[in-house]
């Protein structure tokens, strides 16, 4: 059996696609797990997107807790003895999967960007050394636990005619000596860089927070309207909320056009945008690493280049 779990519905759908491919190859069934309140609509949706079976573990646990979720999944794994467990690689999944692997004494590979069976072993690829290399790793233990980031796999198209079994069971969770006191939505700019077709990004080359309006204007004329940034802008200076952050520990994006303004091109940033269609770099340092990862570049002061570029694009498009 192949098991898929994420508390993020979109990620679950993406993993169901890869999961059904792996299940077919192994001649096994695909099971999706839902933890929390019983949700028939969601269960049926998972079936329409490839699940043969949906296990709903009903619990009144208020919010995600790695310890309790590990316990629930550990029981499901022990009962069903799956070959592969796919877990969504959001932060919840990333703290859940290794704990589960430790409890089961099994292997775990996080943030896989490719997944296939080779020589009868589940093989996973992941970025290592800040995006400088890809490690190809193989499991020699069962179950193989893998975490998958969003946007790595495309969901299957919805098939309302698919049928599957929905199993509901109430689960008791073991008492744990920790509890969640508060969950606060992070302040976000309401952007979704992962779905954007055109992104203009800013980095340390910007001197003041107010200057970000320069790329706002450029994004606007490009009809992109989405702005991104490198780590320092979001994590250290906090000029933009973290939903703008593109990079290894931020969001991974693949727009048709990516314009990096005042970004030096640290490999961690490149790891987040390397799959973009066309990459443009604007930087005053001709030696900046970003030019090695760009299709087109302009060497110059962003405070001069960006307004000129904005005007030129406006003219070209009118």
């Amino acid at each position, binding site marked *: 059996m192949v098991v898929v779990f994420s508390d993020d519905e979109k990620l679950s759908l993406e993993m169901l696609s890869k999961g059904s491919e792996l299940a077919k190859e192994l001649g096994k069934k695909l099971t999706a797990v839902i933890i929390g309140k019983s949700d028939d609509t969601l269960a049926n949706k998972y079936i329409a997107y490839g699940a043969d079976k949906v296990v709903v573990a009903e619990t009144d646990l208020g919010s995600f807790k*790695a310890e309790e979720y590990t316990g629930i999944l550990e029981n499901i794994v022990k009962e069903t003895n799956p070959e592969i467990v796919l877990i969504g690689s959001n932060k919840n999944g990333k703290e859940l999967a290794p704990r589960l692997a*430790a409890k089961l004494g099994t292997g775990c590979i996080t943030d896989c960007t490719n997944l296939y069976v080779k020589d009868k072993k589940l093989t996973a690829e992941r970025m290592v050394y800040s995006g*400088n290399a*890809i490690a190809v*790793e193989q499991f020699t233990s069962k179950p193989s636990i893998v975490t998958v980031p969003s946007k790595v796999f495309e969901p299957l198209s919805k098939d309302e005619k698919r049928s599957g079994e929905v199993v509901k069971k109430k689960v008791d969770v073991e008492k744990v000596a*920790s509890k969640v006191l508060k969950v*606060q939505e992070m302040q976000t700019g309401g952007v979704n860089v992962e779905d954007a077709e055109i992104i203009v990004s800013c980095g340390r080359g910007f001197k003041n927070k107010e200057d970000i309006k320069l790329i706002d204007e450029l994004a606007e004329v490009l009809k992109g309207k989405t702005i991104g940034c490198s780590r320092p802008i979001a994590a250290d200076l906090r000029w933009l909320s973290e939903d703008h952050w593109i990079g290894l520990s931020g969001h991974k994006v693949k727009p048709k056009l990516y314009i990096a303004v005042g970004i030096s091109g*640290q490999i961690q940033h490149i790891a987040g945008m390397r799959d973009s269609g066309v990459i443009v770099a604007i930087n005053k340092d001709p030696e900046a690493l970003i030019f090695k990862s760009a299709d*087109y570049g302009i060497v110059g002061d962003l405070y001069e280049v960006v307004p000129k570029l904005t005007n030129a694009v406006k003219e070209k498009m009118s």
Partner: protein
Amino acid sequence: MNIVVCAKQVVDVSEMKVDPSTKKPILQGVPQKISDIDKNAMEEAIKIKEKHGGKITVVTVGPSDAKERIKELLAMGADEGVLIPYPDKYDYHVVSSLLTGAIKKIGEYDIVLCGEASIDLFSGQVGPRLAGLLNIPQITYAQSVNAEKDKVVAERNMGDKMVTTESSYPVLITVTKEINEPRLPSLMQILGAANKPINEWSMESLISGKLDPIIETAELKGVPMERKNIVYQDDLDESVKKLVDSLAKEGVLR
């Protein structure tokens, strides 16, 4: 308060070069250092010790030259170091089993602190695995930690949410880079670190029976990055015009 900090010696990825022909990373000759976020864990341990007193033990699974790196953490403020030499073959299962063995041998502990992930491989497995093996609560991605006498409250950066979690002791905490600014030890502290003990504990002394890896690295591949690399750097107006023309040809202007 007894605190165990788990730290890893890693290659300095910012100094890493890629072989231009194979695109594979060159791992030989790259300077080694303590993984950045593990230093944040160390700093947080010192802050807790300053408040409550106690002892900080640093544990590393690594090559023998990692002793030099452990000295840096002793200079920062750890009281004692433990080095567990790398077995011939290892993975996260092996490393976290060894660390768990060491923590159990240390005996009494209130907090185990780790970085959220190491900067070389960035898997983020060791923290949650240790918590699982020790069967204690885990507080991951902590951005602020307030350790009180009988409980700890931490704010955790979970991406789109900030989650505040409370736990009694013992607890495992992983921290993010943003939690603090690791201190630089003074010359006196660096000299003083030479007198602090670093114990070497063998795998056999920590684990009974066999401990084999369950993940094998089949290959380390290069990352192809084929880009046009056309850079305009002469007259600015001319450069901008050329760029816009190129973008139009690429079909990305709508």
